[in-house]
């Protein structure tokens, strides 16, 4: 048998042809399926392969003050980003870019650290590049195929430091924020700029807007080849604008007059509707620093600063209310009917008051003698209020103060607000200090000391109620909000009148705050407070200085309520009261069309020259030559 007989060869060849036909047939069918039967799906896939959506950031809503002045808006900015890649080539590209822009070695290391952490995300080399740098890089586009220049609206805060705590600031959303319920709506994505604190955070959903989309064609390495013209660009929608009750001029004035070396806060409210005219905290920071990503250096400085510039003292700070609280004790006493306005306390003030086996001091060791309510407020006589407190009684004082709302938040439209601390019942002492309270606890409480801490905002709301009919809405920053009265003191009109009488005594000749609060056009009614705290009791620091009050035309309704606290300010009437008066004066002058002046109070006048005419005319007999 011949293995390679022609017949055998032909037979074998036939099987081989069959195999060729079979295999090539399989291939042809596979290509037919893919290219003819299913080509639509794959065409779509090919497009989505190379078409990328590029978000167009929506400009945030503009923030206006009550006079229509812009407080925060946007300016066009350019961000320079770098597509992720191997660390070595990123480093090389950054080095190469540093010929045209400033990139420190530290910055390069920061970016590489970011790359290691979030490998897929573009690196923001400069979130706010100058036009010079942008054009330098644009000219060399071929040298930097992975560099992407993106138009980004850029937040601008006009007030700078003046309104920092109030407005807050914006920054890129963090992964924690993305996961949190605050940003739960699916409109948020990595890389978006969101409000971090203050108004920016509170009204994030209004201000944010809807970001647009454009479509670009990219290659496999994500390098942008060009726009994809077939799909329409969605320009997005800018955020809604927001109108605030804030009077920006007033806010800036407060920033101007507040002593920079001291820490503290000022709140100004409109008695008509509880609108917040100014909300200031010192020391501050410039929110513009945060806009394009705050540098590590500045951030660390702000966080390590002992004075805590990021802390919003106006709504977060808790201080013993001190003598500003006496009005609360007085109001409760009047309402309970345990005193009448004209009644004098049986024990005259001799500089101290004996209760139990202890002696309780009055701030004035010389004593105030016999006082009625208005005189006691004017003199801030502790001995009067010790006795009033005892008449009200510990339980009633705890219950009524709590009912009024001193241990509740005001509900201001800011993301953070501290809750006041005031014992609701006797158990508080057992929980906090481990002993049952004696009746004597009412003595310090009735003069605003003891376990009582309030935010400046809460005290402002209290004085707002006093300036009105005893009720006060929540102080609010945003305008045109219908607010229910959140706070009611339940005081008869004549009782309010007598409290005002007391507040007027404070600023009248002979009152504790007369010289610092005497103004040419306006009558100030208010109460100073000098808050003892742990450090001051140990003699290590000055007490905090309060002044809470209202001002308006003589004999008319108050036009503004202002509360000032100055940490370690030593004296309420000496340090805080002039700030309050100058704040009120600035606002009221503009309200009434009177030119503003920086020399405002009696003190201001006599510091630079003679006693002003208006003061002489008002008090022709003089006030004993005191200045």
């Amino acid at each position, binding site marked *: 048998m011949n293995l390679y007989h022609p017949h055998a060869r032909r037979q074998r060849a036939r099987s081989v042809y069959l195999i060729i036909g079979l*295999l090539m047939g399989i291939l042809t069918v596979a290509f037919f399926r*893919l*290219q003819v039967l299913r080509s639509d*799906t*794959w*065409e779509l896939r090919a497009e989505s*392969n190379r078409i990328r959506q590029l978000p167009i950031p929506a400009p945030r809503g503009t923030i206006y003050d009550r006079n229509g002045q812009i407080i925060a808006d946007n300016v066009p900015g350019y961000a320079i980003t770098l597509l992720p890649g191997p660390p070595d080539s990123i480093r090389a590209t950054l080095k190469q870019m540093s010929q045209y822009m400033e990139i420190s070695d530290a910055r390069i290391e920061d970016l590489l650290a970011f790359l290691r952490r979030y490998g897929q995300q573009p690196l923001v080399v400069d979130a706010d590049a100058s036009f010079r740098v942008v054009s330098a890089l644009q000219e060399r586009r071929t040298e930097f195929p992975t560099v992407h220049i993106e138009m980004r609206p850029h937040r601008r805060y006009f007030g700078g430091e003046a309104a920092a705590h109030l407005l807050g600031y914006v920054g890129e959303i963090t992964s924690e924020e993305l996961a949190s319920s605050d940003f739960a709506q699916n409109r948020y994505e990595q890389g978006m700029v969101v409000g971090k604190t203050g108004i920016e955070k509170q009204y994030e959903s209004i201000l944010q807007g809807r970001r647009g989309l454009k479509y670009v064609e990219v290659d496999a390495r994500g390098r942008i*080849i060009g726009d994809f013209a077939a799909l329409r660009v969605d320009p997005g929608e800018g955020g809604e604008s927001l109108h605030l009750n804030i009077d920006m001029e007033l806010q800036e004035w407060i920033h101007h007059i507040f002593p920079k070396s001291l820490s503290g806060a000022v709140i100004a409210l409109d008695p008509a509707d509880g609108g917040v005219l100014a909300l200031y905290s010192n020391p501050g920071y410039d929110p513009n620093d945060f806009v394009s990503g705050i540098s590590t250096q500045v951030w660390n400085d702000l966080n390590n600063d002992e004075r805590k510039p990021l802390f919003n003292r106006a709504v977060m700070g808790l201080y013993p209310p001190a003598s500003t609280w006496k009005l609360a004790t007085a109001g409760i006493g009047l309402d309970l009917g345990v005193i009448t306005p004209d009644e004098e306390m049986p024990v005259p003030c001799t500089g101290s008051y004996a209760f139990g086996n202890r002696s309780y001091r009055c701030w004035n060791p010389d004593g105030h003698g016999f006082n009625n309510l208005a005189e006691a407020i004017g003199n801030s006589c502790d001995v009067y209020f010790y006795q009033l407190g005892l008449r009200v009684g510990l339980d009633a004082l705890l219950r009524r103060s709590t009912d009024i709302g001193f241990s509740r938040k005001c509900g201001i439209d800011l993301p953070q607000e501290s809750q006041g601390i005031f014992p609701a019942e006797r158990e508080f002492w057992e929980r906090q200090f481990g002993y049952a309270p004696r009746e004597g606890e009412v003595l310090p409480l009735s003069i605003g000391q003891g376990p009582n801490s309030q935010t400046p905002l809460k005290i402002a709301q209290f004085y707002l109620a006093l300036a009105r009919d005893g009720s006060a809405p929540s102080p609010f920053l945003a305008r045109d909000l219908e607010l229910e009265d959140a706070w009611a003191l339940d005081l008869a009109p004549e009782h309010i009148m007598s409290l005002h009488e007391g507040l007027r005594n404070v600023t009248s000749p002979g009152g504790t705050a007369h010289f610092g609060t005497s103004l040419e056009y306006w009558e100030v009614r208010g109460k100073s407070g000098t808050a003892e705290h742990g450090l001051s009791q140990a003699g290590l620091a000055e007490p905090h200085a309060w002044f809470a009050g209202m001002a308006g035309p003589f004999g008319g309704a108050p036009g503004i309520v202002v509360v000032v606290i100055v940490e370690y300010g030593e004296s309420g009437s000496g340090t805080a009261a002039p700030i309050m008066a100058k704040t009120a004066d600035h606002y009221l002058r503009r309200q009434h069309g009177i030119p503003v002046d920086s020399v405002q109070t009696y003190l201001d006048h006599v510091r630079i020259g003679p006693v002003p005419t208006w003061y002489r005319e008002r008090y022709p007999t003089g006030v004993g030559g005191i200045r």
Partner: protein
Amino acid sequence: MRRRLKKWILDPTLVFAVLGVTFFGMAMIYSAGVVYIPNEVTQGAWIRQGMWFLLAIIVFMVVVRIPVRWIEWIAVPSYAFSILLLASTLVVGTGAGTAAGVKSWIRIGSFGFQPSEIAKVATILLLARFLSQRKEPLSSVQDLLFPALLVGFPLALVVLQPDLGTAMAFGGILFAMLYWAGTPVILLLLIASPFLGLILSYDTIIWSGYILVLVGFLYLSRYRLLLFESVTVVLANLAAGTVSRPLWNRLAPYQQNRILVFLDPEVDPRGAGYQLIQSKVAVGSGGFTGQGFTLGPQKRYDFLPEQHTDFIFSVVGEELGFVGTALGILAFSFILVRLVSMATRTPDPFAGLVLLGIFGAWLTHVFVNIGMTVGVVPITGIPLPFVSYGGTFLLMCWVSLAIAVRVAHER
């Protein structure tokens, strides 16, 4: 004219068909270089390929004139030489391009070549020489031992590189030549069965069933194999099933992934599945008539992997559509059929066996390369003859062609 042409190139039909495919390949390599962001690798590759083509033509003209006796004679030394080269790749071999981990290249200065290409031709020649001297068909496992060793030796060295694609080509050579030498199909299937056992062993139950069927078949087989053969085949299957797990674990992760994504490319769309998905996207979006020569977006935007070498046929699919791919498959079918018909016509056993060896190698290359672009076979780094970019590969393909037409037309 035709007579003169026949005198010069012996088989104008086949040579012109291959020439056409080679020009087509160079055009596609040119197109592969047309991308939005040019790179040094694909840019100008077609010119380098053209240079190699000129060299290949010269070598072809020379080889076509070598007497068949010489070719027969050179089989042994060239086999020994290529085994030596293959072994040395394991020590001094380097990778190339994306297959940097594969030690299949030998570099001398700027010149590099793959010894496995030479080994394929040498193995074909030596196996043809051995088989052509037999007067009886190989009818037992013992008969198959020597041919299997002959191919198995270079095959094992190639697997160690590791270059699975070329190893498959050796398999194709062995089976095609054994079949042409009259080996019973049933015997071929039995040698192939351990590979089937290897694959099926991923599931113990399926594998056990398979072994039972195999044993039953051997017992009932009307070919009535000898006891020795039956036992050997069963043992080989058992061994394959046993070593499969350690063998799998020995595979490099990229090789494991290639097999896994063959089953489902979407398991790893960014990693191992990426090449297959992008290739299918390119081919599929080509549609019936294609995006137009050099105009394929997938290729232009650089989504296609290895677009001038292993995935050149994806470019064909994207730019020339089904018309292009069908014609391409048809052209290769023609070349393959022509090789077999030449073997049918030549009375010389050696010539027929050499033709079938070359056929086996090319069929494997064509089927695996084209098949992997659409997911019919797993992705293995195996080039498309005469089309894929690669100097030594093109040259050795033309040398094979020269040997094919030489032996077929020996008078």
